[in-house]
């Protein structure tokens, strides 16, 4: 390819084409092991990735996927094992060596300098000489070629902070291509994308594959594995449990390989029987601390015994909506709970008074808002309800024994592992931390449960359990407002779906009468009813 020869940077550690076998695999890992103290993050992992294929690596959080990729990109040194690139053993001591070996990495959290232009980000670390001008000029022509070739168009002079997340990701891919990567590793690339952006990304990856690039896709989304990969490896607890041809497997089989037991991928639930109106929101506006209007006049209602799912790309006002309802953000408009208006500003608008009115809240970010990580489980289990009379011994002292007993009981009921009230919150896995928060909020028997991103960073086994708990609460006649960026989750849990875009509700749908395509368009702000255009 012409682009390759012009890019000019000679990969020093990469084996030369003449000495390598022609059909050598692009990457071969042999017996990779890595331990962090007593934790064996990778155990004797071997994997072979053929050139020009898309290879998926799937596994739960903490299964060791990221560690493996960090070893491949020179962040860690493996305790044992060898790495072979195009048939030759290479030592990857740092990122520079990985880049030289032709490996490009697109991280989950982009490694871009926000107030630099696209061009500056692309050349950073790969400049041709002491002065910037020639490098920038070269990058500009090369970028144009690459963007034409792979549908990777971005404005080279735009600042990163002005670009959408999807475009920022393209810059990351361009960075790798500029460094002549022919092996591209993408870590959870679709987590931040709209469905349309994700589709575009997959088309880009298809194009790269056709040009002979090798792609490794790390994800926990089974659907993506099925959609784009040729082969897939499954990791569980640091071990590679299987490598199969994607065409020969099913999502159910993969889930079972990941978790080690059979998993229900869709939520089992009866049709909803909505009762009285619990929550009514009229013309709600929220302006944040920077003076930006985040919620621009929305109307919503939730009845007893139903789950209203709110979907949307992160940052379209869902967070602020939850914050106002939870009592720690001011808003204007009218919110009624059980027919009675609640204060949206002032001293009667805080978490305490909301809880007193029967609103429980499982916040979106359990590390920042749901838990205090350095506190023990029993302390976390009582936050927000520590004023309750049953936990007071007398006027000054709390009844810690009662709190611990309650925690023990809740932990058993919600299958928190290990069920040890004295363990610090940070010692639990993501799924078990979420169960602690969920137990705290559900056990108070609220009229309305606010729940944000209930399964973010939670493994598949725990997802199943959390979903069941939410449905149980609904069946017990409670109102549930669910906010999630995971469309699958919204579609399978909700009884009604509202789509949020740019602080407004784009429309409501019934899960049985919509699909990901339609919701995806609404999430991207494309108007719901537009008969004129639809006909053309």
């Amino acid at each position: 390819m012409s682009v390759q020869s012009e890019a000019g940077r000679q990969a020093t550690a990469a084996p030369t084409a003449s000495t390598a076998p022609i059909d050598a695999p692009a990457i071969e890992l042999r017996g990779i092991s890595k331990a962090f103290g007593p934790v064996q993050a990778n155990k004797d992992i071997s994997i072979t990735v053929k050139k020009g294929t898309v290879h998926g690596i799937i596994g739960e959080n903490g299964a060791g996927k990221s560690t493996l990729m960090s070893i491949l990109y020179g962040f860690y040194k493996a305790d044992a094992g060898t790495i072979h690139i195009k048939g030759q053993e290479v030592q990857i001591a740092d990122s520079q060596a990985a880049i030289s070996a032709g490996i490009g990495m697109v991280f989950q959290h982009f490694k871009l300098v926000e107030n630099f232009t696209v061009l500056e980000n692309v050349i950073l670390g790969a400049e041709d000489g002491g002065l910037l001008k020639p490098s920038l000029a070269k990058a500009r022509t090369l970028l144009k070629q690459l963007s034409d070739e792979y549908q990777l168009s971005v404005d080279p002079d735009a600042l990163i902070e002005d670009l959408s997340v999807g475009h920022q990701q393209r810059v990351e891919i361009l960075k790798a291509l500029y460094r002549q990567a022919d092996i591209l590793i993408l870590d959870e690339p679709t987590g931040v994308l709209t469905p349309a952006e994700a589709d575009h990304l997959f088309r880009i990856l298809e194009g790269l594959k056709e040009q002979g690039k090798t792609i490794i896709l790390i994800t926990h989304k089974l659907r993506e594995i099925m959609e784009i990969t040729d082969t897939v490896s499954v990791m569980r607890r640091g071990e590679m449990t299987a490598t199969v041809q994607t065409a020969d497997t099913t999502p159910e089989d993969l889930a079972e390989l990941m978790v080690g037991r059979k998993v229900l991928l869709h939520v089992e639930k009866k049709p909803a029987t909505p009762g009285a109106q619990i929550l009514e929101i009229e013309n709600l506006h929220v302006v944040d601390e920077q003076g930006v209007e985040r919620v621009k006049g929305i109307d919503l209602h939730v009845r007893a015994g139903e789950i209203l799912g709110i979907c949307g790309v992160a940052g379209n006002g869902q967070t602020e909506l939850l914050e106002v309802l939870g009592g720690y953000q001011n808003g204007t408009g009218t919110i009624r709970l059980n027919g009675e208006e609640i204060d949206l500003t002032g001293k009667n608008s805080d978490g305490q008074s909301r809880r007193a009115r029967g609103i429980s809240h499982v916040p979106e970010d359990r590390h920042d808002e749901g838990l205090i990580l350095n506190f023990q489980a029993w302390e976390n289990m009582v936050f927000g309800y520590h004023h309750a009379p049953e936990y007071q011994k007398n006027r000054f002292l709390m009844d810690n024994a009662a709190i611990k007993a309650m925690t023990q009981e809740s932990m058993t009921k919600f299958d928190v592992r290990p069920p040890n009230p004295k363990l610090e919150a940070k010692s639990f896995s993501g799924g078990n931390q979420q169960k602690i928060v969920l137990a705290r909020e559900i056990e108070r028997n609220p009229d309305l449960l606010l729940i944000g991103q209930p399964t973010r960073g939670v493994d598949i086994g725990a997802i199943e359990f959390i979903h069941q708990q939410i449905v149980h609460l609904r069946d017990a006649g409670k109102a549930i407002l669910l906010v999630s960026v995971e469309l699958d989750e919204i579609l399978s849990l909700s009884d009604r779906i509202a789509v949020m875009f740019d602080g407004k509700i784009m429309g409501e749908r019934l899960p049985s009468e919509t699909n990901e395509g339609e919701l995806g368009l609404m999430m991207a702000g494309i108007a719901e009813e537009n008969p004129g255009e639809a006909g053309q």
Partner: protein
Amino acid sequence: MDYLTIIQILDSTVRLATPLLLTCLAGLFSERAGVVDIGLEGKLLAAAFLAGAAASVTGSIWIGLLAGVAGSLAFSMIHGLASITFKGDQLISGVALNFLAAGLTVVVGQSWFKLGGRTPSLPTDARFGEWNLPFSDALANVPFIGPLYHELISGHTALTYMALLAVPLSWWVLYRTRFGLRLRAVGENPSAVDTAGVSVVRLRFAALVIAGVLCGMAGTYLASLAAGFVKDMSAGRGYIALAALIFAKWRPWYALSATMLFGLLEAIGNRYQSITMGDFTIPVQFMQALPYILTVIILAGFVGKAIPPRAGGTPYVKER
């Protein structure tokens, strides 16, 4: 106020702004690389002391300059060791250096020279001489241009001209060279630099070396101007330079104007010891406090929003 007075005030402004400008640029390099440098004050003081000591012993201010730069560099490297290598808190490391400099200069000064912590006063030939630019005397009597050239533009020390040249040079380095691109990147998002295969630690140390050299020059200038080292002679100029840096929004040309403004206030305070307005006399203390008052106003954020380099103040730790 006549023309000559204005020229004289401006001349004094340049003189007083020189150490601030050098220190401000030192902070600029350091903070642009993501290392907050509250220890500028300590470096100034250490450099002034060593420069004063070396110049008084050898009789050459240029050897004094070498000693001052060496002292400032040593302090810079301690800061780097604590806050880059060992990932300590940058503020604490900087404050510690300030205390160290304040105490050590006096103690060592007393032990060496027995003058109560001062260094012996420097004779004129052991101080920086004034550079008279070509035709300075010839043009001195030409109306308008004469005083401007003779008083304001000509007749400063070598360090002043170097400080002024350092402004476009800093701009060029930061915005036109590979080193500058990487330096700015490391202050914004070090993990982007790291994953691009460039050493964060080396870049940050390089920035501290530049900061050390610039601070060393500033300290030596102070010692030369005051003809020797006196206890606490930096008088908060390190902190004022930091305020100017915020005012300058971490940009070289703005740093020039910001430090000139501080220099101007100091010059006015020095010239007009008291101003009488009707029955009321503005006390001399108020005039002399002007630069410090401006510092407080700037730090309180009254001059608009200044966005510091985003990774400033945080040691870089590789994430998993």
